């Protein structure tokens, strides 16, 4: 019996007790954080951490922080995967495997949530922050303070998911928490509440970031850069942010309604009392399907940049690439029902949404053909980003075939919720999103850090990911045909599934090796940086504006705002062999001041989420007041929120940077 206490709500000592393996993970994470804090203290870097990073509003630094969080979460989720694979490989017949059902169900719920919200979204926003302002010749984003706030909301959501490991438990209702399973009646614990509030807080951060980048692209392009002269990555971000602006409010409302059901007994989605659980399923996928394109479009943009650069040719069919992006953006909102053909919507509805889904294959196919045509008559340099692209084309095409099958309602009845479906969407998300983000990270790494990564180790990492992926997911495709459904923590020996689950488990070890190589090679690369330094800011013979500035770029990105006359302006300039003018007239540059307010807002948001989960309402009120008051102080403050770098100072900085270049 849970009795709410006025001070600590429903939080009791019991919430801290867990299975040994969970406690191990919690202790491990706590020790890692402590070690990090000790290192910062030992190196006397607290002030540096505060002024250079925690309070920053520089999108380049926010981008790095997004990526660090995302990679950390990728490691955590990878560990979750290994446990799930181990369970499914061993839990057959009389054996119950290695972990209890409740933990297994939390693992797959957390895996989906973390991979989408804190890995894929984190990598995406990280790369957008790093690259987009540079690509459009801008010094900053439209709303720098809002940008920092978005990051800290993202971090607060991430922290909530991980706190659930140590205090209470996470949702066991799957990554989309369909009611009525996610309602209080069937999930009375705090798990679903953790899910709701981590997504709600991170989701609001994503929505704000989407508005920010949408406005940035529309308002802050450099002179001469018309929409049709933008790099394709900028176009893909524009489309993705457009989707996010319309999709994320749906998520916000849906989560809020589910929370009201659970907290105050409303009946929006409950079984009885006039609730409509299918309304939830419609709403969550009206966000959820566009979300897939929110993630994949920027990755398509990255591939467009990578293929053009390494083929030494302009991107083929620019206009049709833009048309394809826009077509996908519009169609993305018209296919959500294909996630539940099996709920009996009727032949006309299913047929319509099946056809709409198939139509998306057309613009996607056009993009792939245009990439191939970009390679045609090129001089292709197979640097590692190209490896990820090649792997993407191979896997994405196969995954697309599976997708066309699933788009046909009559086939979907047989494959929905099976491991075939699981294999399909992993193929699309891993090759489409993750491989794309990896390609982008490797491609733009020298721009951010000033030296290239270790190509040889990266190639080993790629092969581990690529081969490991096949070894993990081909068995899952077959298991789907064998009638194996997702999320099973136990199955009968007579099914004959075990050998395939074991092979799949071995494959996950190969991917783990790939991930380890991907991370560890950064250390090797740092040690070798003297030989791989990017001295001229243009390590790949690039085409777009981000390669015209130094690596790493100055805080203001460009000393003088560039003026462009066509696509691929840097490539064109290099062809004309025009030497940069000796003396440039520098002007004063206005940049936003650092501020800790974004971090405070994120911190308060974390408290809001945590206290709502545990019913510590007095603290919720204080934390909400905290957000409102800090925001009010920030907006009414008479302090200048910008500072000026005088022209003379810019000239001095630039001459010292030019010195580095020589």
């Amino acid at each position: 019996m849970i009795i709410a206490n006025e001070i600590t709500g429903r939080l009791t000592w019991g919430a801290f007790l867990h299975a040994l393996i969970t406690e191990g993970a919690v202790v491990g994470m706590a020790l890692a954080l402590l070690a990090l804090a000790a290192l910062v203290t030992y190196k006397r870097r607290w002030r540096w951490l505060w002024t250079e990073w925690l309070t920053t509003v520089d999108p380049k630094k926010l981008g790095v922080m997004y990526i660090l969080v995302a990679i950390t979460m990728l490691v955590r989720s990878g560990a979750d995967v290994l446990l799930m694979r181990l369970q499914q490989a061993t839990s057959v017949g009389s054996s119950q495997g290695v972990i209890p059902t409740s933990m297994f169900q939390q693992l797959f719920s957390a895996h989906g949530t973390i991979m989408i919200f804190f890995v894929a979204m984190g990598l995406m926003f990280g790369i957008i922050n790093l690259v987009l302002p540079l690509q459009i010749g801008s010094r900053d984003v439209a709303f720098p303070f809002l940008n920092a706030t978005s990051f800290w909301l993202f971090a607060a959501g991430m922290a909530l998911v991980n706190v659930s490991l140590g205090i209470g438990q996470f949702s066991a209702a799957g990554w989309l928490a369909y009611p009525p399973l996610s309602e209080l009646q069937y999930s009375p614990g705090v798990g679903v509440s953790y899910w709701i509030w981590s997504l709600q807080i991170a989701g609001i951060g994503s929505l704000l970031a989407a508005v920010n980048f949408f406005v940035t692209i529309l308002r802050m392009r450099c002179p001469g850069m018309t929409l049709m002269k933008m790099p394709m990555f900028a176009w893909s971000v524009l489309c993705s942010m457009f989707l996010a602006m319309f999709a994320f409010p749906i998520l916000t409302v849906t989560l809020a309604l589910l929370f009201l059901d659970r907290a105050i007994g409303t009946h929006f989605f409950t079984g009885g009392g006039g609730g409509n659980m299918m309304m939830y399923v419609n709403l969550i996928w009206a966000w959820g399907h566009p979300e897939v394109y929110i993630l994949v479009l920027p990755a398509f943009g990255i591939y467009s940049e990578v293929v053009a650069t390494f083929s030494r040719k302009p991107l083929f069919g620019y206009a049709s690439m833009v048309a394809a992006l826009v077509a996908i953006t519009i169609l993305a909102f018209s296919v959500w029902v294909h996630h539940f053909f099996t709920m009996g919507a009727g032949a006309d509805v299913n047929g319509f949404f099946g056809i709409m889904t198939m139509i998306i294959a057309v613009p996607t196919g056009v993009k792939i053909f245009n990439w191939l045509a970009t390679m045609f008559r090129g001089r292709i340099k197979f640097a590692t980003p190209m490896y990820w692209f090649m792997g993407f084309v191979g896997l994405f095409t196969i995954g697309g075939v599976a997708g066309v099958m699933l788009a046909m309602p009559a086939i979907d009845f047989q494959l929905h919720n099976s491991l075939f479906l699981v294999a399909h969407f992993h193929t699309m998300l891993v090759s489409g999103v993750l491989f794309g983000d990896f390609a982008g990270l490797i491609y733009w790494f020298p721009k951010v850090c000033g030296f290239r990564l270790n190509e040889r180790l990266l190639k080993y990492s790629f092969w581990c990911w690529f081969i490991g992926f096949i070894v993990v997911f081909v068995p899952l495709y077959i298991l789907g045909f064998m009638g194996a459904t997702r999320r099973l923590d136990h199955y009968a020996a007579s099914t004959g599934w075990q050998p395939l689950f074991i092979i799949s488990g071995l494959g996950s070890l190969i991917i783990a090796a790939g991930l380890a190589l991907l991370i560890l090679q950064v250390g090797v690369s740092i040690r070798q940086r003297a030989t791989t330094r990017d001295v001229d800011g243009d390590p790949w013979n690039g085409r777009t504006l981000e390669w015209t500035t130094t690596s790493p770029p100055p805080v203001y990105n460009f000393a003088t705002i560039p003026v462009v006359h066509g696509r691929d302006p840097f490539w064109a300039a290099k062809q004309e062999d025009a030497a940069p003018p000796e003396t440039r007239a520098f002007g004063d540059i206005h940049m936003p001041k650092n501020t800790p307010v974004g971090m405070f807002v994120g911190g308060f948001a974390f408290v809001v989420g945590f206290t709502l989960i545990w019913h510590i309402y007095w603290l919720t009120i204080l934390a909400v007041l905290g957000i409102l008051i800090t925001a009010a102080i920030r907006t009414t403050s008479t302090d200048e929120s910008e500072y000026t770098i005088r022209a003379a100072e810019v000239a001095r900085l630039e001459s010292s940077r030019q010195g580095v270049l020589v």
Partner: protein
Amino acid sequence: MPVIGRSKRVLAAVALLVLAIVGALVVLAAYLRSVDISVLEPKGPIASQEQHLIIITALLSLFVVIPVLGLVVAFAVKYREGNTKAQYSPTLASSKRFETVWWIYPSALIVILSIITWNSAHSLDPFKPLDSKTQALTIQVVSLDWKWLFIYPDQGVACVNEMVIPNDTPVDLLLTSDAPMNSFWIPQLSGQIYAMPGMQTQLHLEASSAGTFRGLSANISGAGFSGMTFSTSSRSMPAFREWIDATLRSPKTLDQQAYSVLARPTENAPISCFTDSDASLFSSIILRYMAPGSPSMNMAPGSS
């Protein structure tokens, strides 16, 4: 030594790799022959039409897969940096003709697939009764925490976690849930359909031979979800009648009270059968989720 030795070593490595892959495929093939690949080995007309669709779609997809994979490998090899003999056109950026081709080519394929999609969405609609001269058998299915209840309204029997059907006879399934959502799936007989509280869905299927087929829930429904398997036993009509008669003699009856005990959460429930004394049980389960005290809400489930 360096050049020839290296190429020989590469050759040996490639040969070994090919051998390993072929070996793995042979083992995989042998394994796959020894197990049931339910979806591809259908035992009823619905599942077998769905299997045909899977194969047709896969074959049609090859019209895209083969050119894409072929071209990407061919271009990668031909236009690699090291091959200076290949033509290099650093300004080639568009071609109206070619771009038109690859807007139209996938579109044409999608038109064909869309026609198949629309037609099969109708012909294989799970709510559509099967065409058959044989009188259909109606079974009401209730998903519970965490077991399946099969009610035979016309025969007056009910069973937990076992569905017995006559072969070559259409079966009309009416489904609901008195628990979170589940998805009812017998891969060898037909695709799945959700069972949801307060709602009734339908599924129509037929077994074309006698046999036992695995059934399960395909949608996460809580702690006992993995154990929500059931067995579907298809028998000749005489054997089916015999089973009904035997079950009618079961000492257990399924009235509202027995049902409320049954509906309590249990995991891995064993097969057990009842004589069904309450003919309105199924509709009463659905109505429990409707607005209270409104008999007009009775939507007469069970009419098929």
